[in-house]
């Protein structure tokens, strides 16, 4: 798809994970590594964690889940494409819809009171015994892909079953998940691109943004979301900002959608916080002058950061819309400059090798 058909965005949720022009599959291993990393993150930390939460809270009794599983039409694996690239691309597309489905499960369920104190301690997030295990996938590529396809199917089945069980018990209205999915599709990194472009052309907007981030994005008819404070880090000639969340994967996703896949990897988190300059160079091919101070912002649930990249030189005559097209999801995190092609998934996977 070409970048100037903004109205087609709704058909491509989470396209930022694999922006147009970056789909070079010269390195299928790295692309599969990116899919595995994301699938495992969303399976462990969003889908199954959410399911356990719903079970523990009594929103979704196990019996209802099993019953709905029996009634759910069994999902079958479609016959994989013969061409390896097509097969991997199909997995990427399935991953995108799966992620939207998983996020739709965050829907509020029965607002009634619960007699349990809802703190992180009680929930066990910090309990060693409740650490979530990662799956191991076979190393040979074709075996690995088959195994990823199977894991994808299982999570797809689980999402469909949870949705069915909640609708059947009357705790969620029929259609509510679809509505939620539609709403989720409208949130994406292009919101960030529009915010940055406006900040480039309107210094007063930029100032308001820096002091009152969430309130200010309303001026662009972007819903401000509600996840804590929005931190705005502006790049200048002397300061380059990078964003990470070392504790989990906090990101202003209620405003900007999901961050690039590597943002959630341990490799990125561990390396950027301790060796930002080396990692930007090696994994992202971003070489910054020695005199430029690199600031790594560690996001938490209190403050979630986004970067305003520098406006590229020679763009004085561009319209605000054209300027927005120079902004990439990577540049909003600070691992690429605006107007510059970000490092491919393959080279990031190589650069973070061994620690994904």
């Amino acid at each position, binding site marked *: 798809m070409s970048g100037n058909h903004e109205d087609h965005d709704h058909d491509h949720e989470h396209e930022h994970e694999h922006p147009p022009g970056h789909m070079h599959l010269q390195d299928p291993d790295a692309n599969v590594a990116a899919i595995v990393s994301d699938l495992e993150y969303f399976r462990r930390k969003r889908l199954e964690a959410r399911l356990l939460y719903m079970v523990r809270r009594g929103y979704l009794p196990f019996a209802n889940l099993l019953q709905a599983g029996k009634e759910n039409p069994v999902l079958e694996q479609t016959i994989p494409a013969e061409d390896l690239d097509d097969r991997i691309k199909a997995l990427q597309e399935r991953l995108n819809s799966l992620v939207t489905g998983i996020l739709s499960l965050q829907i509020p369920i029965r607002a009634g009171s619960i007699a349990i104190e809802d703190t992180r301690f009680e929930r066990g997030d910090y309990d060693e015994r409740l650490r979530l295990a990662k799956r191991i996938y076979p190393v040979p590529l074709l075996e690995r892909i088959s195994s990823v396809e199977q894991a994808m199917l299982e999570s797809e089945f689980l999402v469909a079953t949870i949705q069915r069980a909640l609708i059947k018990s009357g705790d969620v209205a029929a259609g509510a998940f679809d509505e939620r999915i539609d709403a989720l599709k409208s949130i994406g990194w292009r919101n960030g691109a529009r915010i940055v472009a406006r900040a480039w052309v309107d210094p007063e907007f930029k100032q308001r943004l820096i002091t009152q981030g969430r309130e200010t994005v309303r001026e662009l008819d972007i819903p401000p979301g509600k996840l804590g404070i929005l931190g705005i880090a502006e790049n200048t000639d002397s300061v380059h900002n990078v964003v990470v969340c070392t*504790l989990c994967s906090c990101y202003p996703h209620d405003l900007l959608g999901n961050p690039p896949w590597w943002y959630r990897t341990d490799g990125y988190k561990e390396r950027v916080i*301790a060796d*930002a300059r080396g990692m930007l160079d090696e994994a992202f091919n971003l070489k910054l002058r020695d005199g430029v101070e690199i600031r790594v*912002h560690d996001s938490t649930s*209190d403050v979630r950061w986004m970067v305003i990249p520098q406006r590229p030189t020679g763009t004085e005559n561009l319209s605000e819309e054209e300027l927005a097209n120079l902004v990439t999801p990577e540049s909003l995190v600070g691992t690429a400059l605006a107007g510059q092609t970000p490092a491919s998934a393959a080279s990031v996977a190589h650069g973070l090798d061994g620690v994904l």
Partner: protein
Amino acid sequence: MQETAEIGRFAVGDLVRVRTSPTTPTINPRTPPYALGHVGTVIKSYGIIVNPQDHHLPYKPLYTLSFKASEIWGPKATHVVVAEVHDEWLDLA
């Protein structure tokens, strides 16, 4: 501490040291482990904020601190780490 309860005990520019361990069982657990025991500079003060644990009730004042990465990871780390830490985790350095 009453009069400073809402804005917090520290001001922009203060050098503060992050405590090495939680002082109460209910303290916000999300202070980055690498910052424990290290000295940072307050670069922004938010005052009281929404509780990061239940996302509902007010919570202790929050600051943005800036740390020299070289003091944590050694001289090769030439960058700056910027992290948010709550009042209850901090003492004047």
